[in-house]
């Protein structure tokens, strides 16, 4: 009996000893990297960043098409868990994407789409706020860390309301108060105004960080799902965020087009 007990204790001890190692292996992000700190002591994520993937075309794995490179997809598990009626809507969106994608109207792209919309963005940190300045459309996001909760809704903002906090070295951003007018990509993936996004920015080295966005919208999806991709720090000498004045390019083109349908009331 004592031998069995001793063996059990020994076994338990080795399981306990092994557990932390197993735990490390299961963590998506190695804890080894310690980022530099801002003057007020926060992990310093400042700089110019950009994704390098085809998420702007389609979050799911996709084949190549004319002008569209193939991509492995950024959705964990591979497939977005649409409700049946929403899946039909996504299919319809895909077929009508040449005209129906709100990006064609140069509208603000929402979150997380702004992150992987082509072009770089710059992160600027202050004590109670992280500001992201995007090249695309000169868009701005303020991620507040001032202790205020989300303001009371309903509010339908294009880019939502962002409240941020630090979990270790990870910037966690909770985003709500969206409208239902934005898509997630050029393939028709979409959401309702009940969209709730939780973003995580985790620095992994001086040169890259992991970006994750958990997407919850019970009207559209059967369960929360997640996209994940690295953000790369732009390394070019003198790199700077330039200008993509989408509305100006669009209006100039449409003004010159005598058969333009742009100057008709929108149906929403």
């Amino acid at each position: 009996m004592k031998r069995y007990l001793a063996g059990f204790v020994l076994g338990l001890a080795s399981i306990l000893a092994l557990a932390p190692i197993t735990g490390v292996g299961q963590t998506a992000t190695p804890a080894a990297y310690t980022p530099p700190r801002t003057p007020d002591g926060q992990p310093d994520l400042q700089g110019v960043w950009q994704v390098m993937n085809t998420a702007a075309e389609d979050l799911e794995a996709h084949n190549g098409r004319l002008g569209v490179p193939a991509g492995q997809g950024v959705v964990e598990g591979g497939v977005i868990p649409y409700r049946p009626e929403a899946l039909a809507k996504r299919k319809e969106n895909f077929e009508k994407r040449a005209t129906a994608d709100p990006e064609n109207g140069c509208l603000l792209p929402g979150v997380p789409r702004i992150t992987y919309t082509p072009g770089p963005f710059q992160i600027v940190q202050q004590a109670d706020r992280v500001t992201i300045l995007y090249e695309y459309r000169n868009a701005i996001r303020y991620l507040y860390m001032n202790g205020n909760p989300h303001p009371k809704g309903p509010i339908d903002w294009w880019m939502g309301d962002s409240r941020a906090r630090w979990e270790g070295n990870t910037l966690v951003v909770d985003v709500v108060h969206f409208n239902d007018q934005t898509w997630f990509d050029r393939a028709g993936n979409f959401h309702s105004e009940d969209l709730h996004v939780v973003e995580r920015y985790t620095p992994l080295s001086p040169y890259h960080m992991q970006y994750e966005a958990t997407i919850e919208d019970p009207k559209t999806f059967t369960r929360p799902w997640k996209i994940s991709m690295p953000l790369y720090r732009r390394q070019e000498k003198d790199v700077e965020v330039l200008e993509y004045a989408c509305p100006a390019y669009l209006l100039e083109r449409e003004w010159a087009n005598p058969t333009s349908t742009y100057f008709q009331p929108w149906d929403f």
Partner: protein
Amino acid sequence: MSHRLVAALTALVIALALWAVMPVRVSGQAFWPKSTPKIPMAPTWVRQKAQLPPFTPPRLADGHPNLQGAWDGAGGDGAADIEDHEWLDATTPSQETFISDPADGKVPYTPWAMAKHLEIRKGLGRGWPGEQGERTHGATRSLCLNTVPRINVDGGQEIIQRPGQVIIISSDVGNFHRIIPTDGRPHIGPNARFWFGNSRGRWEGDTLVVEITNLNGRGWFDTAGNFYTENTKMTERWRLVDPNIIDYSVTIEDPTIYTRPWTMNFPKRREGTDNRRLRAAAFAAVSAEERRASGYVENTAPARPREPNPYAKEVWEEPCFEGNHENTITQHESGFKWYSGVTPPK
């Protein structure tokens, strides 16, 4: 709020800038009765700043002056016409010129450029003297397209300084940010042309000097057709002359359309200081009868109790372009053409 309501509210905000198309009924402080005293701009500011005592600005750790914080625009009517003008309607009060040099406060156009300016001006459909009833060119601002230096005139801005960079964010007129390198790097190549141009900053003593080149020449300084070209170079100077005042000037050079360099100059006041008082004083200077006669709608709702608002200092989304589609349609249907700049003679 429903999307329609947001769109309607945004449209109302835009309507304040969309003077060219329709008469605007407004309530609130952006309303200027006819007897509003002339809004001071460059001439008054040049006199005022000459009286200021010497000022040593607070500095950041890197030794440069600390310009950080939230700053107002120029006040008044924004830039309806950068030159001195009389009262036009409730959105456009009598206002001094923005131009401190030359002394006459006028843009020193060459004869060719002056003819071009008058040609644009007569087709503004706005009610300015000299118009001939045509509608040729609306101002890009009413299409939610921002330009420099107009953005410094129009609304509030926040300045953030970082080593090697000055960041200027304008968030109350749609989205606009400038990230100005101050690390001595050269301008971008000459074929790249931008609505905001390409900005390079440097410190000359306590003054932030920003050179803007690579402009696409498609913007105006105002809504009255005062224009620049692709050849124009702008040099901005930002200097603290008081804890709450930046002396802002921008010198415009372009031998292809101006006979000499010229300069706009006005104060940018720290948000929450003088501009609000100025507007309130101008508003209070006229009688309620005259306000009503001019179309002002008095707010008769009982005053809401003032509670401390924890969100008061946050900047919330106010998209300009998203809510402006109906105004864009109106501009298009009214016959306004797209302005793609001018080509001066060689």
